[in-house]
C-alpha cells in the first residue's frame, strides 16, 4: 500500500510538471546575431498563392515575398504609384486601351529546386521575364483556381480574359498545358522584358490594379515542378498523372517563389510564420522624399539606405485582442493596435497618448484608413428594397456620431458620402441629405414607408413595418455591441430588428446568394480612386457580387461608364460627385464610419508609417536591436 501512495504521488507530480519538461522553447539559435522583427497576425492565413489572395491577413503576409509591377510610395501622401518590378511608368496609347510596361532586368526569384542545381549544389534561380507576368495573368483567369478577387478587377477589362476563363473550364484541373495552348490576348510578352496590356474598354485605374501584388509574376518552373511532379524517393522527381494532380494552387512554403525582400522559410498553419531576408534582393533604397512632417518625425533618417533593414520577421497567429495587447505590454512585439477595451487607458479624451505611455518611449501614430463601414440594404428585398422612405427614415434615425464615440472609442469620423474623405470627389459630392439625425423627420418617413408598403400590398393597412433582419459577421463582443446599438437606434422610430450573428463564410454566403435583408459591411479601398467605391453600385456588377446590394439605377450606370472614358482624374471628379449624390439620395447603404487607425510603437521601432492601401512595406521598417535588448525586449 505504501508503494501505491508513493507511485501515485510520483505520477501526480510527473503529470503536473510535464508541461515544463515536455514543452520545448522555440529554437531561435538560427536568429543569433540577426535583427528579427516580432509581430503577430490576427487571423489564419488562407492563401500563400498570389492569385488566390482574398483577405487582408494573407495579403499582408504575401507582401513580404510577392511584388507587383508597381507599388505605392512609402511616405508620400496623397498616395503616389511608383514602379516596383516595372522599369518606369507605363506608356499608354492615345485611346487608353494599351499599356506597355518595361520590366527591370535585375529582379531575381528566390533560389528554389524548381530551377535545378548549381555546380556547388545550391539551388538555382533566375531573373523575372515578361512571360512570368503573362503566366500570372493566365492563372488569374484560370477557371480551376479560385481567383475571385484578382479576377474581379480585370475580368471584363483585359481583352480576352472572360473568354480565356471560359476556355480553361474545358481542361482537366491538373492539365497545366492550358497555359501554353490558350492565348490571353490582353496580356502579351513583347520581348523578354516588355509586357503589353490590351484593354477591352477604357480603364484608367489599371495602374492601381497593377500595383496589387496578386498579379505578381510566377515562373512556369514552379507549376511544372511543384504541382505536376513529385518526389520519387530516390532524390529525383516523377510526373504526377494529370488526374492525380491534387492542387492547382500553391499551398506549401517550398513552392513560394517570389521576388520580394523576404523569403517564406517557415509556415505552421494557424500558428507561426517566419520570413527571412532574400539574399539576392535587388537594390531598393529607402525614399529620400516624404510627406510634410515626415522629416520632423525622423522618417527620413535612413534616406538612400538599402532595404530591407531587418534580417527576419517572426509572426505568430494571435486572434484574441487581449493576448495581442499583452504581447505588446511585455515587449514581445514592436508595435500594436490598441484594443477597444483598453483604449481609454492609453488615449486621452483629446485623442492623444497619455503621458504614462509616452514616458516609456512609446509613440502613437494616427492615420486615416481608406474604408467606409455601412449598413447595407438588399434592394431586392420586398420591404427594405421596396421603400426608399423606409431606408431614408432609418438613416435619419441613426446617430452615427454617437455610434463612433460609443462603439469605436471615437476612432473614426462620420462617412458623409460614399467617397472616403481622403479621395478626390468627396468634397464635391458634399454631405448626403440624410447624413444627420432628425428623429421627427425620420418618423414621418417611416409613416410614409408604411403607406407605400401598404399600397404595394406588402403589409396590411395600418400595420407596422415587419421586423427587419440584420446579419452581422462575427460573434465577438464588438460585433454584439454594434448589433445592439443598431437595434436601439432603429427602435427609436418603431422599427424592430432581429439580429443574426454569423461567422464570416456564412455571412458572405448569404450575401452572395442574396439571402439577407440588411447587413453590416463596408469597403476597404483597393486603390485610391473613388471608382473603387462606386463600382459597388454599378448594376452589371450584381453578377460579380461586388454590387451585392443589387442597386440598379440606369443613370448611375451611364455615368459610371462615362467616367471610365476620362483618363484624367480631374475630369472624372464631377461625374463621381454626381454618382455619389445619387447613392446619398437612394440610400442603398447607411454610411457609418470612416475609421482611423491608432498604432503604438516601441521606441526601438523606426521608419514605421502606416500605408492605407499597400501591403508588404515591412521592408522599410528598422529595428534598433540594442535598444530593444536594453529595454528588456527580445534578442
Amino acid at each position: 500500500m505504501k508503494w501505491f501512495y508513493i507511485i501515485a504521488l510520483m505520477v501526480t507530480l510527473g503529470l503536473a510538471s510535464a508541461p515544463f519538461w515536455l514543452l520545448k522553447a522555440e529554437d531561435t539559435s538560427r536568429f543569433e546575431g540577426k535583427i528579427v522583427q516580432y509581430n503577430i497576425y490576427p487571423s489564419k492565413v488562407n492563401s500563400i498563392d498570389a492569385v488566390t489572395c482574398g483577405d487582408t491577413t494573407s495579403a499582408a503576409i504575401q507582401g513580404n515575398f510577392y511584388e507587383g509591377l508597381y507599388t505605392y510610395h512609402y511616405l508620400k501622401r496623397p498616395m503616389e504609384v511608383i514602379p516596383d518590378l516595372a522599369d518606369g511608368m507605363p506608356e499608354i496609347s492615345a485611346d487608353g486601351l494599351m499599356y506597355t510596361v518595361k520590366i527591370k532586368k535585375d529582379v531575381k526569384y528566390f533560389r528554389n529546386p524548381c530551377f535545378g542545381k548549381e555546380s556547388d549544389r545550391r539551388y538555382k534561380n533566375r531573373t523575372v521575364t515578361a512571360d512570368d507576368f503573362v503566366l500570372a495573368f493566365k492563372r488569374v483567369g484560370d477557371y480551376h483556381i479560385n481567383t475571385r478577387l484578382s479576377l474581379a478587377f480585370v475580368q471584363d477589362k483585359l481583352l480576352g480574359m472572360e473568354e480565356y476563363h471560359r476556355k480553361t473550364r474545358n481542361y482537366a484541373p491538373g492539365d497545366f498545358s492550358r497555359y501554353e495552348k490558350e492565348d490571353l490576348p490582353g496580356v502579351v510578352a513583347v520581348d523578354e522584358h516588355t509586357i503589353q496590356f490590351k484593354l477591352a474598354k477604357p480603364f484608367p485605374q489599371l495602374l492601381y490594379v497593377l500595383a496589387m501584388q496578386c498579379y505578381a509574376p510566377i515562373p512556369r518552373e514552379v507549376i511544372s515542378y511543384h504541382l505536376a511532379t513529385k518526389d520519387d524517393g530516390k532524390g529525383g522527381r516523377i510526373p504526377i498523372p494529370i488526374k492525380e494532380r491534387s492542387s492547382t494552387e500553391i499551398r506549401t512554403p517550398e513552392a513560394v517563389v517570389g521576388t520580394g525582400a523576404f523569403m517564406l522559410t517557415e509556415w505552421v498553419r494557424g500558428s507561426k510564420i517566419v520570413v527571412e531576408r532574400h539574399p539576392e534582393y535587388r537594390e531598393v533604397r529607402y525614399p529620400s522624399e516624404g510627406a510634410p512632417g515626415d522629416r520632423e518625425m525622423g522618417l527620413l533618417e535612413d534616406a538612400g539606405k538599402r532595404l530591407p533593414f531587418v534580417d527576419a520577421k517572426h509572426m505568430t497567429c494571435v486572434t484574441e485582442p487581449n493576448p495581442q495587447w499583452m504581447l505588446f505590454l511585455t515587449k514581445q512585439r514592436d508595435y500594436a493596435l490598441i484594443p477597444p477595451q483598453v483604449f481609454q487607458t492609453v488615449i486621452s479624451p483629446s485623442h492623444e497618448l497619455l503621458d504614462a505611455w509616452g514616458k516609456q518611449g512609446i509613440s502613437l501614430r494616427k492615420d486615416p484608413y481608406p474604408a467606409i463601414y455601412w449598413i447595407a440594404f438588399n434592394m431586392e428585398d420586398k420591404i427594405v428594397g421596396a421603400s426608399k422612405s423606409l431606408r431614408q427614415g432609418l438613416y435619419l434615425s441613426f446617430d452615427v456620431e454617437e455610434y463612433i464615440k460609443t462603439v469605436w472609442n471615437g476612432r473614426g469620423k462620420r462617412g458623409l458620402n460614399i467617397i472616403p474623405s481622403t479621395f478626390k470627389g468627396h468634397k464635391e459630392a458634399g454631405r448626403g441629405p440624410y447624413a444627420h439625425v432628425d428623429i421627427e423627420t425620420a418618423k414621418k418617413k417611416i409613416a410614409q414607408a408604411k403607406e407605400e408598403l401598404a399600397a404595394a400590398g406588402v403589409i396590411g393597412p395600418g400595420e407596422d413595418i415587419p421586423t427587419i433582419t440584420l446579419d452581422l459577421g462575427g460573434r465577438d463582443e464588438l460585433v454584439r455591441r454594434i448589433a445592439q446599438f443598431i437595434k436601439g437606434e432603429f427602435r427609436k422610430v418603431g422599427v424592430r430588428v432581429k439580429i443574426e450573428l454569423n461567422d464570416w463564410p456564412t455571412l458572405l454566403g448569404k450575401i452572395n446568394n442574396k439571402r439577407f435583408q440588411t447587413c453590416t459591411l463596408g469597403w476597404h479601398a483597393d486603390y485610391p480612386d473613388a471608382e473603387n467605391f462606386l463600382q459597388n453600385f454599378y448594376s452589371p456588377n450584381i453578377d460579380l457580387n461586388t454590387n451585392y446590394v443589387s442597386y440598379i439605377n440606369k443613370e448611375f450606370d451611364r455615368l459610371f461608364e462615362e467616367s471610365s472614358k476620362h483618363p484624367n482624374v480631374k475630369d472624372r471628379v464631377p461625374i463621381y460627385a454626381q454618382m455619389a449624390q445619387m447613392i446619398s439620395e437612394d440610400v442603398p447603404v447607411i454610411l457609418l464610419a470612416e475609421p482611423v487607425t491608432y498604432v503604438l510603437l516601441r521606441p526601438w521601432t523606426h521608419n514605421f508609417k502606416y500605408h492605407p492601401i499597400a501591403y508588404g512595406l515591412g521592408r522599410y521598417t528598422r529595428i534598433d536591436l540594442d535598444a530593444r535588448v536594453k529595454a528588456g525586449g527580445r534578442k
Partner: protein
Amino acid sequence: MTPEHTTLPPQQADGGDHLVSGRSLWGDARRRIMRDPWAMICLGIIVLYALIAIGGVCYELAAEHYDDVPAFEETSDYDNTNRHPSLESPRFYLGTDWAGKSVLYKTLLGVKVSLTVGFMANIVAIPLGVILGAIAGFYGKWIDTLIVWLFSTLASIPGIMLLIALRYAFEEIPPIFGIIDLAGVPGVCVALGVVSWIGTCRLVRAEVMKIRELDYVIAARAIGTPKFIIMLRHVIPNVLHLAIINFSLGFVWAVKSEVILSYLGLGVPVGVPSWGNMINAARTDLFMGRWWELTAAVGAMFFLVLALNIFGDRLRDSLDPKLRNV
C-alpha cells in the same frame, strides 16, 4: 393501484399513545420539506426569483403595448456609460454598462431568461426521460435495447459539443408555424432539453425494471390489466419522485448551460438581457477594471443555483424513502 398504496404503515407519534392516520409519499415529503428551515429559505429564494421573472414578463408586455414604457433596448444612456455602482438612483445601484443601461435592471430581466430556459428545458427533458425510461424498463427486449442504444450513443457525445452543434443546426431552421423561432430562446430550451434527458431516462429505466417485478404489478397483470395501462397507472406514478428531483437538479444545469452558451455567443439573441450575455460582455470590460456587470450576473446566478441545489437535495431526501434515515 395508486401511489397511496406504497405509503409507509401508520406511524406512532407523540409517545405512541394514539395512532395517526396514514400519509401519502407526497404528503409526507411536503411535511418534511416544510419542517426543514433551509429548504424553506431556498424555496423562498426560488419563489422570489420566479416573481422577479414574472415582473420581467409584465414589463416586457407593457413595453410592447404602451408607448410611454420604454423597451429595455431603448434605455441606453450614452452620457452615463460604464458608471460605477452608486446610490444616486436605483438605475445606478449596480452601475451601468457600455451603453449606459442599468446593470441592476439588466440583472433582474436576466432572471426571466434563466428561469424560462431552466423550466422549459426540463419540460422537454423530463417527460422525454420519464417516458422513454419507463418504456425501456417496462417492456424490455428490443425496445429496451433500442432506447439504451439511443441514450448511450447520445451520452458518448460530449454534452457541450452536442449543444453547440444543435444550436448551429437550429440557426438554419425557419420559425416553426412562424412563431417558434429555434434560433432564439426556444432553440436554447429545446437544445438543452434534447441533451439533458439521458440521466432521467437511465434512472427511471432502472427503477421501472425494479417496480415491474413487485407484487402489485404482478397482481395487476394477473387480473388481465393491459400492459400499457399498468405502466401508465401503476408504474409511472411510482417513479415521479425521480422526475421531480431531476427537474430541480436539471434546472441548475440548464441555467448554467444557458450562461455558457451565451458566453460562447450561441445562447439567447443579442440584446436580450441574460446573465450569459452579461458575463460575455464583461469579459472584455474586466480588462478595464469594470467588475460590476460580471459580479451582478455571477451573484444572481450563484444565489439561484445554490437555492436550487439545496432545495433539490432536500427534495430528494424527502421523496426517497431509502435516504430518510441517512
